[in-house]
């Protein structure tokens, strides 16, 4: 109600701003010529004053007076409109009606279009201090945040807030909260694991260095009650996989499963991941022997944890796709079908055997850009980065074709092979 009262008052003042000048007595409006003459006369008297006070020299004053007089004479007296007195009353009435009806109707209508007259102000301080609104979780969070901003060493507060952040999807904030918890209340397996998890989520699923540190310290600190920190070890395995060490990752997961109690609730999850990794590995194997296609790289990394930024050869592979035929010495269709049916271990062995074949063939016949490209890529997909880098270096010195060398350098750069990150110009 108070708001509407104020609105009424404001409107009334606005209307008065139009009505008051209308109600004052009329007076003559000077014509332009009269106004001009008045200006020049004022100038003349100003000039006279200046001359008297010695602010202006006699010669200058004389020149200025002549100039003003010239302008005074030249005043344009032709275009004068006679004042219209007859329409006086009706003009006043029309304007008054415009003010009395037009202003309020226009203003209220336009205001109602977008205004929210039913909504009070909601300054943050008042909201934080008022009765907690249990339905609005973000408000509760803000309240705790406000408390923690003033008492940043309240570890319990951070510990309460951190999981709430996680549930709200604010993982970076959750990570910061867990960091505070560890800083204030000390490190333990559960806290480090939670911190690591938050960091992984915040990074879109990538186990960053920072997250890995947290998991490692969680695994290190793991005591009796922590069952050997399975969650942290699981993430460490994921980290290994993300770095291309799929074999290491699967081994870590198998170790984890072996040590796990038979009734552990997380067993199925680990088994699932293990199965996915093994499948990815076999996909890698088949991918190795597909003609080079853009998806070649990402195939090995199609796990949901891998962000696109971590698949450097997604783009880099494309320009190399030129030749469609499988490289000489590669497996035939039969071999590939056979590979698909093999057990993972056997398949790995078969793949590595074929890669070794290729490597030794290139040692005998080194001037083969296509072959080197295949070999570098194969090593990379198998996670043997150092071998890939060595192969690329050998290739760069032994391939005679300039374009081929460029492609190899480009591939090495795309794969971020150690020491070859930059494409030499």
């Amino acid at each position, binding site marked *: *109600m*108070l*708001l509407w009262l*104020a*609105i009424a008052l*404001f*409107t009334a*003042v*606005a209307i008065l*701003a*139009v009505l*008051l*000048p*209308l109600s004052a007595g*009329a*007076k003559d*409006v000077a014509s*332009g010529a009269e*106004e*001009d003459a008045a*200006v*020049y006369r004022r*100038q003349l008297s100003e*000039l006279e004053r*200046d001359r008297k006070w010695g602010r202006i*020299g006699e010669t*200058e*004053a*004389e*020149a*200025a007076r002549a*100039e003003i007089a010239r*302008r005074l004479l030249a005043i344009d007296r032709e275009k004068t409109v*006679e*004042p*219209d007195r007859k329409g*006086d009353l009706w*003009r006043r009435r029309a*304007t008054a009606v*415009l*003010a009395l009806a037009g*202003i309020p109707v*226009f203003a209220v209508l*336009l*205001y109602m279009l*977008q205004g*929210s*007259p039913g*909504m*009070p*102000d*909601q300054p*943050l*301080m008042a*909201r934080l201090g008022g009765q907690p609104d249990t339905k*609005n979780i*973000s*408000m509760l969070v803000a309240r705790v*945040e406000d408390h923690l901003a003033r008492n940043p060493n309240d570890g319990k507060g951070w510990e309460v807030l951190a999981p709430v952040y996680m549930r709200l999807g604010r993982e970076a*904030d959750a990570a910061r909260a867990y960091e505070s918890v560890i800083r204030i209340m000390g490190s333990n397996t559960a806290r480090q694991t939670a911190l690591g998890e938050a960091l992984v989520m915040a990074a879109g699923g990538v186990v960053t260095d920072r997250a890995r540190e947290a998991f490692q310290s969680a695994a290190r600190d793991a005591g009796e009650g922590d069952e050997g920190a399975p969650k942290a070890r699981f993430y460490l395995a994921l980290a290994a996989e993300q770095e291309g060490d799929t074999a290491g990752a699967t081994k870590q997961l198998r170790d984890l499963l072996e040590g796990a109690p038979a009734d552990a609730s997380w067993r199925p999850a680990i088994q699932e991941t293990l199965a996915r990794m093994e499948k990815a590995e076999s996909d890698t194997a088949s991918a190795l022997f597909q003609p080079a296609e853009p998806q070649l790289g990402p195939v090995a990394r199609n796990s949901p944890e891998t962000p696109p930024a971590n698949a450097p050869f997604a783009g880099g592979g494309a320009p190399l796709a030129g030749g469609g035929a499988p490289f000489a010495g590669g497996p035939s269709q039969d071999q590939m079908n056979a590979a698909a049916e093999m057990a993972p271990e056997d398949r790995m062995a078969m793949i590595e055997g074929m890669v070794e074949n290729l490597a030794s063939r290139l040692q005998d016949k080194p001037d083969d850009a296509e072959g080197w490209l295949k070999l570098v890529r194969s090593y990379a997909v198998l996670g043997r980065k150092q071998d890939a880098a060595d192969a690329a270096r050998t290739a760069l010195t032994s391939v005679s074709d300039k374009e081929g060398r460029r492609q190899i350098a480009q591939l090495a750069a795309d794969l971020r092979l150690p020491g070859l990150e930059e494409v030499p110009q």
Partner: protein
Amino acid sequence: MNGFFSLAELGHYSLVLALALSLVQATVPLWGAAKRDSRLIRVATATSLAGFFYIVFAFGALVVAYVVSDFSVANVWENSHSAKPMLYKVTGVWGNHEGSMMLWVLILSLFGALVAIFGGNLPETLKARVLAVQAWIGSAFLLFILLTSNPFIRLDPAPAEGQDLNPILQDIGLAVHPPFLYLGYVGFSIAFSFAAAALIEGRVDAAWARWVRPWTLTAWLFLTLGIAMGSYWAYYELGWGGWWFWDPVENASFMPWLAGTALLHSAVVMEKRGALKIWTILLAILTFSLSLLGTFLVRSGVLTSVHAFATDPTRGVFILGILVLFIGGSLALFAWRAPSLRQGGLFAPVSREGALLYNNLFLVAATATVFAGTLYPLALEAVNGEKISVGAPFYNLTFAPLMVPILMAVPFGPMLAWKRGDLLGAAQRLAFAMVAAIVAVAVTLVLTGAEGALAPFGIGLGVWLIAGALNELLDRSGITRGNFKHALPRFFGLPRAAFATAIAHAGLGVTVIGIIATTAYQTETIRSLKPGESLEAAAYTLTYQDVVPRTGPNYREEVFRIVVTRDGKAVTAVAPTKRFYAARQMATTESAIKTFWFSQLYVSIGDLHDDGSVTVRAYYKPLVTLIWLGTLVMAIGGVVSLSDRRFRIGAAKPARSARKGRAAEAGA
């Protein structure tokens, strides 16, 4: 209904009411002026003052919403954060599209109210028409705000925390740059309204020029300062050490400045001599049109840069509509009415008027150059989608050559008499300035080892402007003619307008020197440093010590501590930082600047590397501060000129004293 009261809602209503009043102000006084009805004419003053009050109230309500972090107001939620320092809560009001448009109309109505209050001695019909035209502009922009950019839209339920302001804008620069720039932009609306009113009236009153010049000067003054501040802000905030990028947004403010400078000079001719009337009116229209164009370019989002926080196409189309309406309308009015205006006095080509016209032609040509460079890429992109960027090389080839002849001519202008001047005599009396300029060129050549003649020439040009300004004062006090006896009293007896001219022109010279010295002689060193390593920047050695973290109110930052030594002696320490603003997930670079006399050492931090090293960019910028100090001097000249409130009549020297070799100037 309960007894609550909402300031935000009343602010919203207040804004609507301001529009209603503005519409009355846009029509009734025009009617009154046409019929010479004093009552209707008086409505203009009252509505303009009331309208100003309502806009101030609305703006105040918005500021309060920001200060108390009322996130139920969408605009506050989008651009503020409860942890933001109080200064940025307030400046954040205009650090976004809606709020900056509010500031725009606030300043527009402020200028209207000032005319209403101080326009007592204006012819009544002229005043009514000026205020009506002002109200057209105001109505258009108020309508724009209310229909497309309403800052008072509410959110229910209210979010708990705001999204914070763009970190680049969280700077003291935001507190001063936009208000000053808008005071400049919008100030030109007064000149525009006077021009439109004169065209509607069909005559240019005697009081016209006397009124237009101080308003134009005020607007020019603020625009000068606003542009300079924006330039300095970009210089220290963006971390690249550049002070002018020929960015379309910068050009958008530079074009009205160039046209406004031309207007300022032609208004002088009109005030003193009654000449160049029609040209001045056209310039007034063009200057404000360029201000509107600047508003359009920045607000419509057709440009992509940090300034383009508006990307809603309906807004762009709306502003384009306003642009077409006002520029097209006023030019049509000009085409229709200008031929019926009486021409002013005549003058010889070599005269003060001639010199000012020369100034106008070059400034307008320069404006056209910037206009082409700014709009051509946009037009090209609109036609065939090709994105090109027009930068410094284009302007160096087009704008710079236009500036040389005009800068060379500046000292001549004040030396010439009104109506008919003596070029040779002026040149002789400028001997002192010429010698000073030549000495400056020679000294620069020697100091810099004679590499390239262009930069020493530029420095000489700057000195020529400063010495020329001083030369004029000395000449007018009689010293150059050997009349030492009365020189001192004459010097102090000179009208303030003469000092104003000299100060402003000298300020221009100071800026020119700063620009040339920095552009030609700055050094840049970029190196990757590990703690303990150092690099050389000019005569200084910078040693990177370490990096320490620090927590600000709404950001965290890493402070890179660097010790500066010269000849083995520690001079100072600098601490450039990298900040991270969590709310917007944005990082900014805060450069560190140390000033040595007029020169600056500028250090900013680039990438961090895994091995603990960091890329350090160090610039040594000789005389760089002169760029901004010069604009400050120019603005001081403007203030001095404003303080000279005497009437100004530029009389030609009486024929009998014409051969005495010096112009007699009354009032000046």
